């Protein structure tokens, strides 16, 4: 699904990723943990092609394609999805409209016809139920006046509608209370089908109680310093990151 080899990246002339390697097979869930400033969010931004995040060396292959050669929107249409840590508002653009043009853009790229307004509305209503969002949210402006939890659930709803092959969740758990966390995790788990892969970026082990990863990687100073299974997350919770940063990894 995704093969990252020796990836270096910089943001505003500052080197953030310094030779990162990860292999993700279809159906796997990889958690990326690490202290502040280790490059966790940068990884998601570089992979999804956010302007200002520049890959300077290494390679990324996504479903057999050179990911870094694709435009931001092409990566998305090819099935890469980033759930934002801080979803931005787009005033006046209804959520429904936004979701429909995104879904249509992806369908068009895949050579499928656009969904009719009626078909889409039905699909969107069903999906909003799955993340416990009232159908009214579809009529409101994109993220406009949404609470933190509502914004995150809105991200998961978009993910469900777009049916990506690779989902990157960038600290989706930040600012969520336990109920919202449960809803988000249920949503993600319902999408695990043995083919779709996930990168779950998080600070806290807590999320991984709900979304159980196949692998846990610790990112420090732009590199993976340790990899393991879910027990690594528990170990980190107990010991913190400093034992790894001090070179034991």
């Amino acid at each position, binding site marked *: 699904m995704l093969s990252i080899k020796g990836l270096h990246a910089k943001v505003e002339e500052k080197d953030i990723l310094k030779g990162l390697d990860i292999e993700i097979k279809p159906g796997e869930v990889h958690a990326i943990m690490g202290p502040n400033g280790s490059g966790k969010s940068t990884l998601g931004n570089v992979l999804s*092609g*956010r*302007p200002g995040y520049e890959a300077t060396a290494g390679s990324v292959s996504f479903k057999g394609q050179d990911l870094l050669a694709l435009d931001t*929107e092409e990566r*998305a249409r090819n099935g890469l*999805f980033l759930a934002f840590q801080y*979803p931005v508002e787009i005033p*006046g653009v209804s959520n429904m409209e936004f979701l429909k043009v995104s879904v249509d*853009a992806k369908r068009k790229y895949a050579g499928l016809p656009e969904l009719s307004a009626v078909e889409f509305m039905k699909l969107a209503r069903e999906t909003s139920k799955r993340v416990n969002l009232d159908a009214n949210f579809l009529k409101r402006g994109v993220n406009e006046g949404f609470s933190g939890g509502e914004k995150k659930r809105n991200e998961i709803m978009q993910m469900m509608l777009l049916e990506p092959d690779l989902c990157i969740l960038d600290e989706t758990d930040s600012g969520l209370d336990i109920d919202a966390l449960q809803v988000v995790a249920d949503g993600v788990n319902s999408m695990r089908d043995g083919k779709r892969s996930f990168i779950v970026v998080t600070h806290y082990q807590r999320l991984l109680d709900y979304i159980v990863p196949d692998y846990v990687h610790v990112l420090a100073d732009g590199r993976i310093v340790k990899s393991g299974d879910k027990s690594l997350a528990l170990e980190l919770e107990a010991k913190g990151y400093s034992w790894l940063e001090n070179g034991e990894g």
Partner: protein
Amino acid sequence: MTQEVENLIKTEYAAGFHTDIESDTLPPGLNEDVIRFISARKEEPEWMLEWRLKAYRAWLEMKEPTWAHVKYPEIDFQSVSYFSAPKSMADRPKSLAEVDPELLATYEKLGIPLHEQEALAGVAMDVVFDSVSVVTTFREKLSEAGVIFCPISEAIKHYPDLVKKYLGTVVPQKDNYYAALNSAVFSDGSFVYIPKGVRCPMELSTYFRINELNTGQFERTLIIADEGSHVSYLEGCTAPMRDENQLHAAVVELVALDNAQIKYSTVQNWYPGDAEGKGGIYNFVTKRGVAHTNAKISWTQVETGSAITWKYPSCILKGDNSVGEFYSVALTNNFQQADTGTKMIHLGKNTRSTIVAKGISAGRSNQAYRGLVRINPGAEGARNFTQCDSLLIGDRCGAHTFPYIESKNPTAVIEHEATTSKVSDDQMFLCQQRGLDAEKAVSMIVNGFCREVFKELPMEFAVEAGKLLEVSLEGSVG
């Protein structure tokens, strides 16, 4: 000017006059003979000619306004031709195949129906054209309701009493430089009269879209809504208008008598000049309405065209409890310049006005919102709410706000809100991460920004206006 000089100019012109009287276009230049010529060609009564001449004489004494936040080379008003008859059928393209493919591509993007494309591109239609029958049906329906809707040149001949009673009462001949010029040389325009208590049975739009062609560069429109009547009038077209004339100076007067309502919507899409800022229409417009007791006037405008726009649709809230509204979207791209806004003059008691102005600047364009809210001493309990938002795309464009508030009555309540924002990188990234390309993303964000105004437009037009923004924004990103 001394009598001698005047005579000299007259004589000089008389020579050229004779040679050109056969032709359909006057040579450039403006003097009293040109005005006599226009009036004669239109077979106007003597009073109309006098009215025009009075305006012309006033115009000679006036100065071109320079306070607007726009820059352009000085206009030589003697180099403009003030009369040109519509092209004859023989000179027009025979079919759409003969029309500029680029123009057709734009019509396509806007979803303009084929028969309207033909009308807009000026295709000669002398055989059966389905909109002709549509027009006839409309005419019948309107006349059943007693509504008068015709070119103002016809109204001058057939309804002289109405025209005499109202023409120039809202925008007097001497109102401003361009209004005076228009009063002297106006080519044609529309006349609407809605009788007492009548609700106009249709939007005066589709009809208009087909019929407004070739009304010329100095349009004059007069709409009178008699007591208790309603009318919704739509001016303009989302399709780009081909026009050889660079200078446009229109005047629109609205009269809403007691309990009447006029909704006037405009989409202006004149040629804005090319990406380098060459060419384009100069658009100097005076639009104003008077609202009598309990009457309501609502202006909605979407302005995307013209190189220079100078336009302030205004309401004089004369009667008690009268209401004025102004909803505006102005979009400038490349090197376009717009100075636009409104005036709300509160004279009557408990008068209310609402202003929602949305300005979008892209490219190297410059835009100013200029609005006046004046509460006169007699306007007890007057209220105004103004919201003025600017959206910038890129970092080479400009947005400016010039609000003027004059309150002479302590009971008045005036609210003013203004914001300036940019299409943010984060918004763009969100859209692109969801698979939208940059142009689609910008047009969607801009459409969202304009939503409050678009919802005031007649339904079918709101959709077109959205597409129009998309076309106008082409090339503003990337």
